[in-house]
């Protein structure tokens, strides 16, 4: 039988390898927050199996589960059969878009980026009071969430880089648009071209990103291949910070939330911990950490499309911070900071920051 969809052509064997053991239920954040098996990775694979078997067809009814996946990959790394669910989901979302079935939030996202320079469709770029597009050793690429929603964190990160005398420049950045790949669409080539041109014009030897998703996009997505071809290195800010000895300490109980995009997707687990442990002797791991870290619920477009469940996932993550008595929850992703902060309950007394912001704050306090 001729395969009808690309997901089947690419991933038929993978889908069939799902042995339906259901072990992903222990790891899938959407299942954890809802206890609804249809949302679990197994539920999604079963639907695709039935599509391949010709029992059902892709249609609008399936949007609710196929577009409700944070692509956190916690199922994949724990799957006894090694089924790469996030990649399969990303492909089937493209198939869905091809037949005209897409969550309106994601159709909207794609449309917004045809007309605007950022996913929030903000007209005025935030002013971070720094000269842009100058010649420098590094380009600091903020990312949409850092620029438009977590600007305080970004300002603090920039202040810290100033303190550390890192020779960087900002650029008139536009959305890297990597997230479109996750929600059934494709990276916007015009935006990619614009970013590449601006970065190359600075003569920088490397791009430092404030957002781990931008790191992934620049690092391994075809439209951005020019960056590496021109010899530029791509770093996340956490990889840069670990090389500095910052003379400041906190007594607080500090923990670290691994962002999926930085941890499971880029394999960067230890660098942030190195930095944090230097400043926080009372560092405590969350019960689920590194490869097993639970998703904050923001990824894969879920925060925009399924806000209630996204917040429920963040609450489950914060529950762990509460259990270990953390006073400060650090992470390395503005999306995580944003979602975790939104989900924080009043009774939860801990603070939530990106590592750079927290360090900068400590330095401000000793000044």
């Amino acid at each position, binding site marked *: 039988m001729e395969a009808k969809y690309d997901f089947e052509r690419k991933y038929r064997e993978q889908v069939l390898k799902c042995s339906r053991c259901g072990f992903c239920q222990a790891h899938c954040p959407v299942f954890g927050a809802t*206890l609804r098996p249809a949302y679990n990775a*197994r539920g999604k694979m079963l639907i695709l199996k039935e599509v391949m078997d010709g029992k059902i067809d892709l249609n609008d009814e399936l949007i609710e589960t196929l577009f409700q996946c944070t692509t956190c990959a916690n199922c994949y790394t724990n799957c006894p059969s090694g089924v790469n669910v996030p990649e399969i989901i990303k492909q089937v979302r493209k198939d869905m878009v091809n037949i005209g079935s897409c969550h309106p939030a994601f159709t909207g996202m794609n449309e917004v980026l045809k007309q605007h320079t950022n996913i929030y469709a903000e007209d005025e770029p935030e002013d971070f009071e720094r000269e842009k597009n100058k010649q420098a050793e590094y380009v600091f690429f903020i990312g949409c969430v850092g620029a438009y929603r977590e600007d305080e964190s970004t300002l603090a990160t920039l202040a810290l880089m100033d303190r550390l005398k890192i020779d960087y420049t900002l650029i008139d950045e536009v959305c890297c648009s990597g997230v479109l790949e996750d929600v059934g669409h494709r990276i916007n080539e015009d935006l990619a071209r614009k970013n590449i041109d601006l970065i190359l014009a600075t003569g920088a030897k490397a791009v430092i990103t404030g957002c781990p998703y931008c790191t992934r996009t620049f690092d391994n997505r075809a439209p951005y291949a020019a960056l590496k071809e021109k010899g530029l290195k791509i770093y996340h800010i956490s990889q840069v910070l670990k090389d500095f000895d910052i003379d400041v300490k906190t007594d607080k109980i500090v923990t670290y939330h691994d962002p999926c995009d930085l941890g499971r997707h880029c394999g960067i687990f230890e660098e942030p911990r190195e930095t944090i442990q230097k400043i926080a002797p009372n560092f405590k791991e969350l019960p689920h950490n590194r490869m097993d870290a639970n998703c904050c619920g923001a990824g894969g477009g879920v925060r925009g499309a399924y806000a209630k469940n996204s917040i429920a996932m963040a609450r489950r993550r914060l529950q762990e911070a509460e259990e270990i008595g953390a006073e400060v929850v650090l992470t390395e992703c503005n999306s995580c900071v944003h979602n975790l902060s939104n989900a924080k309950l009043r009774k939860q007394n801990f603070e939530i920051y990106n590592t750079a912001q927290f360090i900068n704050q400590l330095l401000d306090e000793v000044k």
Partner: protein
Amino acid sequence: MDKSTRQSLIDIVGEKNYTDRLIDLVSYSYDASEHSHRPGCGIWAHSPEQISEIMKLASSKNIPVVPRGGATGLTGMAVPQGGGIVLDLSRMNKILNISIQDRLAIVQPGVVYADLEKALDRFGFFFPPDPASGKVSTLGGNVATNAGGVKGAKYGTTRDYVLGLQVVLPDGRIMRTGSRTMKSVSGYDLTKLFVGSEGTLGIVTEITLKVNPKTTAASTALATFDDLEDAGHAVSQIMYSGIVPSVLEILGREAIVAINQNTDLNLPEVDAILLAETDGYTTEETEYQLAKVIDVFNRNRAKTVKQATSEDEAAELWKARKSAYGVLARIKPSFVLEDVTVPMSKIADLLKGIKAISKKHNIMIATYGHAGDGNLHPQILFDKYDPDQARRQEAASEELFRLTIDLGGTLTGEHGIGLQKAPYMTLEHDPAAMSVMRSIKKMFDPKNILNPGKMSLEN
């Protein structure tokens, strides 16, 4: 679901706890077996009273009801073979009471095994059955299947810990069985009747479990054997030694080769590997026991014996056994994981027989499992989209069951009968036993609405 039934169900549980949406019906069609069937609807139940109303309605309208927990079962027992209602109990997930002074925990059926484990750990206690699916399987499901795990030889299975139940019967009556005491001979043991009944007699809505203090020390050793018979003899002789290891696991050659081909563990490609663990409260105690086990290994011509000297080393020794399921799950598109169980003295005969069956039907069977209680997991690997392979798998399974029964064994040690083994029930149970089982089913569930089609109870 017809319109009026649908409305009646919604009246009982509320709109948001009823679903007949395609995405839910697809996921409720399956468990971890190769079986599937679409239900009419799914319901998220929250209380015994709701379930009682649902059962009354289902009884009056002859609608099948299939209880479901984590749906990690390997025999199709959560598959709604007759359609009807899938009753998802996973949201009844409260630990109602942990009373260490009474040595018990009272839980709702949707509590995940690992969550109870975590809650008990604070008190230094545990609920021993430890099924491999414990991170996701629910205690209601553990009761329904009488779940077991690697520690079965020493600590038994779920049945040995269930003290009492609350059950909703098919006609809607709510019944309590057993007690909160450590022992009771008051009347028939209705509690144990429900353990392993696969959701065919009633819906378990509350479980009272005996819990054990956790041991604090363990010693681990791994032995390799060039000859299967030697490994088999070692297993039965350990039982003579006066020691009951907390773990005694076996890996057969095919499983070892598959693990080597798919990992970098570099195991010696021998006929069998035995992994033993002894537990207790002091190292002296566990080492003393392990020394006896190792002595048996050596006397049975073990090729190598390695004893772990640290927790890390013990974890290394466990790697091969722990990787078996995952490795074997990746080799072919489909597999059937059996759990035949024989008297411990027959382990070697069973392993030899499995090898012959594999050869005869030209199908890969890799075996590992709980040698300590005679419970092996032959994993038959095939491609179910190839009709010839599917046929050979069925033939191999049937022959495996016949062999097991001939060796004085049982079809299933811990997974249950479900749909998968229903056709073979009469191989193991004589006509009188089958007739009694069917009478019991009829008495509890005269209309056959609870999980119909399972365990060969209809005739």
